């Protein structure tokens, strides 16, 4: 294979690995187990300032003296989205989640902030829907007070295992009451997460983003009624069935170095295979047995330190005094002069024979060469 083809081949393998990792990643993005989904205490905090309705007498810039709900009022899709949000949780008596409803607006004069809990935290969807249906717009926008009252309620009626959530909807700029950012800071201190939704072109996007950011929540933007319903549905989806993605991320993290280091991996594998091939194989060769020839067994004589070596075939007499080996014909030790009498012990009956004996005089066994 020429170098150019090899490069393309390696690149192809790299792409294949990456494609595999991405596809596995796609299929491993799964909904988290229901058991892993935490319990939630959620407050829907809805802006019911005058701008959520339709001004029928005057206008919002110079002064609106009468606000009504018409089919085009922003409060209508807001109510619909809120109802759908509640329906998504399928609340019942045994439900793990609790939802409450709070509103914020200003007094008719516009100077006094008003924030109220309409429905306390609970799992009665009927009460919630009635509460949502009863909302009527009017006055200024007291966003900070809305956040504060919901936070306070979540703190007072807290469950240790439940996560505290505020879903904040607003279509305008906070102009009455406390600072929303300070309220968000307090919410964060109380472990409350805020999902903020800006609805319409006049919404205070920066403040809503900041509120979500401070509390580690998420900011959404909805421009139409349908967008708003979708956004509330998405928030409910994120809460109920958060998608788990960490297992798939791990796969990508492994795939990238693998595909980039393909030549090294290839070389390593080749080296390993080569080594395996070059390794000499130990062959056990059994000696051929021939039936004609008897197998010769060489038995090594046992070495004893006390006894000196004695060669087979040559008779030697050991001196009992100094252990010196003497000739078989010797009568006196050549080293110390002690008397050495040669004796041949029969291996069969242990009878001591003369050194000249070839056979045992007692039992007739061969004794030649066995000298002690």
């Amino acid at each position, binding site marked *: 294979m020429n170098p150019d083809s090899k*490069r393309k081949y*390696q*690149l192809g393998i*790299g792409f294949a690995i*990456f494609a595999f990792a*991405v596809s596995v*990643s*796609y299929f491993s*993005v799964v909904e988290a187990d229901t058991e892993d989904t935490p319990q939630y205490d959620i407050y829907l905090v809805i802006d019911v300032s005058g701008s959520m309705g339709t001004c029928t007498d005057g206008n919002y810039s110079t002064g609106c003296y009468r606000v009504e709900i018409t089919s085009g009022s922003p409060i209508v899709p807001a109510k619909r989205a809120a109802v759908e949000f509640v329906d998504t949780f399928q609340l019942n008596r045994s439900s793990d989640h609790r939802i409450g409803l709070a509103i914020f607006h200003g007094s008719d004069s516009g100077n006094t902030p008003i924030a109220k809990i309409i429905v306390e935290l609970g799992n009665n969807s009927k009460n919630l829907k009635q509460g949502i249906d009863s909302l009527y717009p009017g006055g200024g926008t007291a966003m900070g007070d809305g956040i504060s009252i919901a936070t306070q309620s979540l703190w007072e009626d807290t469950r240790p295992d439940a996560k505290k959530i505020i879903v904040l909807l607003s279509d305008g700029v906070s102009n009455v009451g406390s600072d929303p*950012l300070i309220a968000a800071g307090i919410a964060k201190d109380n472990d409350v997460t805020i999902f903020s939704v800006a609805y319409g072109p006049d919404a205070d996007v*920066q403040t809503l*983003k*900041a509120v979500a*950011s*401070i509390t*580690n929540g*998420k*900011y959404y933007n909805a421009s139409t009624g349908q967008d708003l319903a*979708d956004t509330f549905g*998405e928030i409910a*989806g*994120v809460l109920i069935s958060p*998608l788990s*993605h960490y297992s*798939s*991320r791990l796969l*990508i*993290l492994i795939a*990238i*170095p693998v*595909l*980039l*280091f*393909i*030549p*090294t991996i290839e*070389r390593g594998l080749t080296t390993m295979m080569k080594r395996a091939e070059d390794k000499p194989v130990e062959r056990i060769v059994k000696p051929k047995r021939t039936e004609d020839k008897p197998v010769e067994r060489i038995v090594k004589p046992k070495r004893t330190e006390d006894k000196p070596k004695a060669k087979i075939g040559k008779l030697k007499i050991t001196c009992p005094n100094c252990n010196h080996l003497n000739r078989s014909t010797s009568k006196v030790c050549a080293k110390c002069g002690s008397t050495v009498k040669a004796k041949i012990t029969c291996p069969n009956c242990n009878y001591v024979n003369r050194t000249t004996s070839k056979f045992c005089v007692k039992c007739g066994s061969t004794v030649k060469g066995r000298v002690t």
Partner: protein
Amino acid sequence: MASKLTLAEVPLLIGGLFLIYLAVLDETLFNFVLDNVTQNQFTVSLATVIAAAFPMFFAVGFIKRSILRRWQTIYYYEKMLLGEVFWILTVILLSIITFIIVSEQGVHQFNAHILAGCILFSVYLVIYSFKTRQKSYP
């Protein structure tokens, strides 16, 4: 197989490890992608790939340049590593992450360590690439 690390390559190694940290644990890119699209299986998968693959792609390069010099990567990546485009792309990625942290998360919630890491490493890369360029074309 690993090469001996020289003092000049320590920042590259630290940068590579920082990028691995971004790939493994940082949620900035992931959240940024998901914030701008509707969350479903495809978008979560896409965001995961972007959040993990991009930093890891560059991390491998820096680790290779610092301690795994003898390890050969695929030809086109090797070629990219030798050129200036690798540094430029890394600086662009770090700048994007910095921008997201500053603009999206606002001044209220900084991932200070990530922000500091991105800025410092970007600055180092710019200086390093200029120095390398001066050596190559004095």
